């Protein structure tokens, strides 16, 4: 077939294992055909074999059974290796680890240099590729000073410079914030639509997959589902069974159907779903419900105000990096906030909003240039002793905490914090075991090396290391970054079980509005080093326009309701969960008929 550019014919693969262990098939009889110019998304939870499949497409891995043909070239033919790799460009998850040179344009030139392209032609390609990804004005910049989204676009340009006809992307947005994701996704779409590039996108973001022409869901090394996004996502229960989550818009329609309505599951995008719902809600009296306060009764425990004591009080702090040098940068600027005892607060902000700098003030790792931080009523910067006490009262979990594991066994790693607190052996033992059970690590795993765990387990072991210190305030910086939907749920339940068992307060930093809204009592939105807005989730989301202006994402459900409002359907625009949305829609529909 002339039109098929990728043909994986019944391929199997197992990673080499240590002697004595039985090999596990990472791919088990996978057959996939991809046509020229197609945009295919490959979904699957961690360990489903999707990355292994991607690595077969340019002969980084060779199938142990079956054959992969790229443009009719067998990937096992070594003489075709360079031809295959230049035809099929590959972009990986971590942009930092793909950039070779110290100047952007030199990096983009790397592949054509390796191909032996003449200098004038390299110059032409570099300029063209940087222009495609919109990074021309940065060509003389040092890559380490760029944002994540920019770095990833440079990495894409570096691959485009080979002039490939296929682009394979292995979770290119997993480590990016919402605005970085948007940048990269629009680049991918443009390449596919305007330049007829065949795109294979490995992802676990459903909204990204919904933009593709075809979706392939992998599970346990096999192709579990295949079809257009509409076909695949309408099988809501099957998708859940494969440890994935359908897009929220489809989920709303699905839940409505479960409540006895019959709606087509057409809701790949907000607009599409709005069309379907508009149709559904037609005919009801439009003034029936003005929809003021959304289902406050639904979650009464969440909306109660905390009048009790504060565990943390931040009083008008500012932090300036490298003060007095040309690099001077005001990272946070007059921030004031409080966290009540037992409260669960979500802190939201995009990259560069100062949130990571801010949280390091809570336990005295950084001291403010001006202003005060009080933990349990004590100014932690008043003396070194107080600062050290604050370290143990406020437990801080950094981004990608699994990168800080270092001990020989998980037990010893979890015990590191308690040991530094000077606790006795019995107490340490009690705490380690309790923390391990809070994060769902079995005791049999405690003697294993942290480096033998899976990605999700490592993350949980690292959380346990902070839980074991039993801080009164747990601060987590992007605890779910880079995990698949199942991994994300696991982390949330770990945090909730810690909170339930110890009654501690939690402050949770994220750029995912959906997660923040779902589990927090109160949201604080940070932008440009200042508090932009704060309040209960519905209060914050009722100011969605403001959030969007500041480069933040709002939940898909909220976007849907805003769209419906725009079309003259009176639904409260501050709804943020699918459950609430379904209730509101039913209320409106039934209210209209009554």
């Amino acid at each position: 077939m002339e039109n098929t550019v990728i043909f994986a014919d019944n391929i199997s693969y197992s990673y080499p294992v240590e002697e004595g262990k039985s090999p596990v098939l990472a791919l088990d009889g996978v057959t996939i055909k991809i046509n020229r110019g197609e945009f295919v998304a490959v979904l699957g939870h961690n360990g489903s074999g999707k990355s292994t499949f991607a690595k077969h497409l340019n002969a980084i891995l060779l199938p142990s059974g079956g054959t992969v043909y790229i443009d009719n070239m067998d990937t096992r033919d070594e003489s075709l290796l360079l031809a295959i790799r230049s035809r099929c460009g590959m972009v990986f998850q971590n942009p930092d680890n793909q950039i070779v040179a110290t100047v952007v344009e030199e990096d983009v030139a790397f592949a054509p240099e390796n191909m032996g392209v003449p200098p004038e032609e390299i110059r032409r390609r570099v300029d063209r590729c940087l222009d495609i990804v919109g990074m021309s004005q940065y060509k003389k910049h040092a890559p380490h000073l760029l944002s994540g989204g920019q770095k990833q676009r440079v990495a894409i340009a570096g691959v485009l410079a080979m002039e490939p006809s296929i682009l394979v992307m292995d979770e290119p947005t997993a480590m990016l914030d919402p605005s970085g994701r948007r940048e990269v996704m629009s680049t991918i779409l443009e390449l596919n639509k305007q330049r007829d590039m065949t795109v294979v996108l490995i992802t676990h973001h459903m909204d990204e997959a919904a933009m593709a022409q075809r979706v392939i869901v992998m599970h346990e090394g096999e192709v579990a589902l295949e079809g257009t996004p509409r076909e695949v996502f309408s099988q809501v229960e099957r998708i859940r069974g494969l440890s994935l989550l359908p897009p929220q818009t489809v989920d709303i329609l699905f839940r409505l159907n479960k409540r006895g309505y019959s709606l087509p599951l057409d809701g790949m995008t907000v607009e599409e779903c709005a069309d379907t719902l508009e149709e559904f809600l037609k005919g009801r009296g439009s003034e029936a419900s003005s929809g003021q306060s959304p289902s406050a009764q639904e979650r009464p425990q969440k909306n109660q105000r905390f009048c009790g004591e504060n565990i943390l009080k931040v009083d008008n702090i500012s932090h300036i990096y490298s003060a007095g040098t040309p690099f001077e940068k005001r990272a946070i600027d007059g921030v004031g906030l409080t966290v009540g005892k037992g409260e669960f607060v979500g802190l939201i902000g995009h990259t560069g909003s100062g949130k990571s700098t801010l949280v390091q003030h809570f336990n005295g790792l950084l001291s403010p240039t001006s202003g005060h931080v009080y933990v349990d009523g004590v100014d932690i910067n008043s003396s070194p002793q107080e600062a050290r006490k604050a370290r143990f009262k406020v437990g801080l979990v950094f981004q990608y905490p699994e990168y800080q594991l270092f001990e020989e066994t998980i037990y010893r790693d979890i015990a590191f914090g308690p040991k530094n607190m000077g606790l006795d052996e019995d107490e340490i033992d009690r705490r380690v075991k309790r923390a391990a059970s809070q994060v769902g690590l079995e005791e049999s795993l405690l003697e294993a090396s942290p480096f033998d765990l899976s990605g999700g387990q490592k993350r949980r072991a690292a959380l346990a290391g902070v839980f074991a210190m039993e801080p009164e305030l747990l601060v987590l910086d992007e605890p779910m970054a880079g995990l698949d939907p199942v991994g994300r749920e696991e982390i949330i339940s770990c945090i909730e079980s810690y909170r339930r068992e110890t009654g501690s307060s939690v402050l949770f930093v994220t750029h995912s509005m959906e997660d923040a809204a779902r589990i927090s009592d109160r949201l604080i939105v940070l932008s440009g080093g200042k508090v932009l807005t704060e309040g209960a989730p519905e209060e914050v989301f009722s100011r969605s326009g403001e959030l969007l202006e500041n480069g933040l994402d709002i939940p898909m459900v909220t976007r849907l309701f805003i769209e419906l409002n725009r079309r003259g359907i009176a639904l409260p625009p501050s709804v943020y969960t699918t459950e609430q949305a379904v209730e509101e829609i039913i209320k409106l529909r039934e209210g209209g008929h009554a």
Partner: protein
Amino acid sequence: MLKNITLGQFFPGDSIIHRLDPRTKILAVIMFVVALFMSSSFWGYLICFAFLAWCFRTAHIPFKMILRSLKPLVIILIFTGLLNMLYTPGDTLVRFWIFNITKQGVKNAGFMMCRIILLISSTSMLTYTTSPIALTDGIERLLSPLKKVRVPVHEFAMMMTIALRFIPTLIEETDKIMSAQKARGADFESGSLIQRAKALVPLLVPLFVSAFRRADELATAMECRLYHGGEGRTRLNTLKMTGLDSGALVFTVALCALVIKAGWIAGLLI
């Protein structure tokens, strides 16, 4: 934040010196240094100082940068000066306790200190006006004849480029791991030397693990971009010697000859 460190000491600019081919600059510095050590008259050093001062002015490098680059060397400067002054035999100038300061000693000390200062500032001149990449490129090209005797010149240059690329990334990472371990109560600042060395384990293990992971991923990414060693590789920015470079080289040769023979010429004139 450690992120803002400048790599090497490069001062971007567009002066004549910046525009010279890195090979020219490397060769010129080597000749200059040789001339420094062969010269044995104050006139020679005077010419050198004058020339370097002109270079710094032309390249718009602030004067305090030279002082900063000399700062770590103050102790060595004083030490060499004293040693030369005290242990050179010759005509006694001053004598106290067991020391004997000679005329030759003072002269030698002066020479040595001039040499060190000039050595450091001339090599700094090279790094101030040449980007790390250009420098690596220049070294690679200059050493390329060694490829014939199987010295892996390209591989060394590649390693250097990658090292330069990853230094800021790893510094940032060190910073992050350090904060994270501090948040778990690690103490890097107090205790005895042994305790402090032990305290580094929670920092170094994750740092090495991460460096290996990065190396692995980078290697794969490089393979995906068709890297297969230096063979048949072309460059985006090829180095080109221009008339300016030939001029600069001829000028440096003449200058060096002048420096070496300065004493003799001065003798003729005066």
